[in-house]
């Protein structure tokens, strides 16, 4: 996993609540056995007018010329709800998003982001409302600093909290399986004392 410390990038505002992972990556694109090839299908039904993905929907925010190259997604509450499919954050990452900012995330989606190296930032609703307002008034670039746990605009700074181990894993690109395998003795101890039915 790539290390994540600080990121400066363009924000794209996706002002919809309860964006589910079916919207992020529809089921017809889940038939791969690799972790790649999902970015082109990100938000397929909203992004393309046709089923083959040849005709862009000009109304969809990701297709607007001013947001090309955006790497920070500003999203509505309960982002990533629904299906556990990790294909959703894979698609977001492959498209180019490194940070997603919302007032709340669905639990499984949040964990999936951490595990693949996308930084999910939770900010209070008032801060999110301000960021949406500013992002719609003009192009907005943000500096997201994981080490300091801050989001900086041209005029303001917002602090966010993240679990210490999540932060450590992102900052150091930790292989979480390898990390746990170093604790195999503890797992063996646990297994040795389990009741027979377990």
């Amino acid at each position, binding site marked *: 996993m790539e290390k994540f410390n600080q990121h400066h990038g363009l924000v794209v505002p996706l002002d*919809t*609540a*309860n964006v*589910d992972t*079916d*919207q992020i990556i*529809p*089921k*017809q694109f*889940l*038939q*791969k*056995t*690799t*972790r790649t090839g999902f970015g082109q299908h990100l938000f397929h*039904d909203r992004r393309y007018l046709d*089923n083959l993905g040849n005709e862009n929907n000009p109304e969809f925010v990701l297709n607007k010329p001013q947001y090309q190259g955006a790497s920070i997604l500003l999203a*509505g*509450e*309960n982002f990533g*709800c*629904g*299906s*556990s*499919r*990790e294909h959703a*954050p894979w698609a977001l990452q492959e498209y180019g998003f490194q940070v997603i900012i919302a007032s*709340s*995330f*669905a*639990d*499984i989606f949040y*964990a*999936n982001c951490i*595990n*693949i190296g996308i930084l999910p930032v939770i900010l209070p609703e008032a801060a999110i409302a301000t960021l949406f307002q500013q992002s719609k008034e003009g192009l907005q670039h943000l500096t997201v600093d994981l080490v300091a746990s801050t989001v900086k605009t041209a005029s303001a700074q917002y602090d966010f909290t993240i*679990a*210490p*181990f*999540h932060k*450590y894993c992102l900052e150091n690109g930790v292989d*979480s*399986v*390898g990390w*746990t*395998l170093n*604790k*195999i003795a*503890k*797992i063996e101890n*646990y*297994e040795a004392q*389990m*009741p*027979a*039915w*377990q």
Partner: protein
Amino acid sequence: MATTLYEKLWQSHIIEEKADETPLIFVDRHLIHEVTSPQAFANLKFHNRVLRHPERTIATMDHNISTRSIEINAAGEGAANQLRTLEKNCKEFGIELFGMGHKNQGVVHVIGPELGLTLPGTVIVCGDSHTSTHGAFGALAFGIGTSEVEHVFATQTLRQTKAKTMRIEVKGQVAPGISAKDIILAIIGKTGSAGATGYVVEYCGEAIERLTMEERMTVCNMSVEFGAKAGLIAPDTKTFDYLKGKDYAPKGEVWQQAVEDWQQLKSDSKAKFDSYLTLEAKEIKTQVTWGTTPGQVTQVDSVVPSPDDFTDPVERESCIAALKYMGLTAGTKITDIAINKVFIGSCTNSRIEDLRAAAAVAKGKKVSATVNAIVVPGSYRVKEQAEAEGLAQTFIDAGFEWRLPGCSMCLGMNDDVLTHGDRCASTSNRNFEGRQGRGSRTHLVSPELAAASAIAGHFVDLTSINSQVQGA
């Protein structure tokens, strides 16, 4: 100190809990399927790692498969590739697989309980969000992503942040004809689609205790639809009776010991929860979703709401968008909404009791000429039992298509998809935009209401029909 059921399950599975590190918990049972496992196997192989406990891992084929044929190729090229990859991986790593044509094959959350793979007091995970189903047995069960599937493969553990606890009590008894689906949809209607994010929910109260095991599964199944990490119901004699003698359940002395231990699995009377919600069972009516999240739900004897009914600006905006997508006008009576597709199936409502309930409604009737209706049993065992009981014939006689077990139209990964503008009464769990097919419109309902709607061609108020019949 008085503790909740969740805290007991958590404590009994902690391997390591220390400052600045997310706690490490043991996983007793890992269920896998073809769609969310291939990348986890690939990484395991890339790193030359072993799969720690193949005997704690069970695989089935369900998400992608055809419901018309047990041939792998019938699923289409991409799906067939995933199914063959699962076969190869299970062989290589020594995992038991219930593949196409196997008597134990079926939807992962249907076969787990019916085979006794789901046990109280265990931690169960699967790369599927509806793993919350297994909480009906007092197991801590939740969906995980593919990176976590890989973590469980290699270590039989997971890193988990401890959740907050919510107690949802459903007091008293529901009215006749009110199903478990109505109970859980009514709960979600109260909490909203993210009302339990960050929480593990425990369901309790007389109405919950009175539910059968299959009904409890329906309730716990949809816990994730209002954001909960997991849903729990304390195990009782119904739980033990259900599991006794099941293929993979403990036997003999081990069974005795298990039941003794499981009887301790309940929240202490003085245990404190972080949040509480109470519903009066008698107030719960037949539910129908009108929008594009499960929380956008109302009663069948009601009308499509108006954006003006919502004070919260986000809910208001969501209502406007949902009405547009769903092609509905505020104020329309729910029973005036015509449907042209019906799906009876999914990990929420495809068990034998669900099929009995739907068949009882369909018996001697005919599916409307304007409706195409399919019934997809949750597993081969359910299918065989439904055929033996004559339910399958009842459906066929009424004009329903009787299919082979699988996830089918719940998520439409196979060819059971709706087309643009189709309106479906579905016993599944998600009414998201495009979930059952691009531009399709899903209304979540109980099996009884799905069957009745198939016959009428629109939603019907079953309780009002029943009371009219009784009065006549």
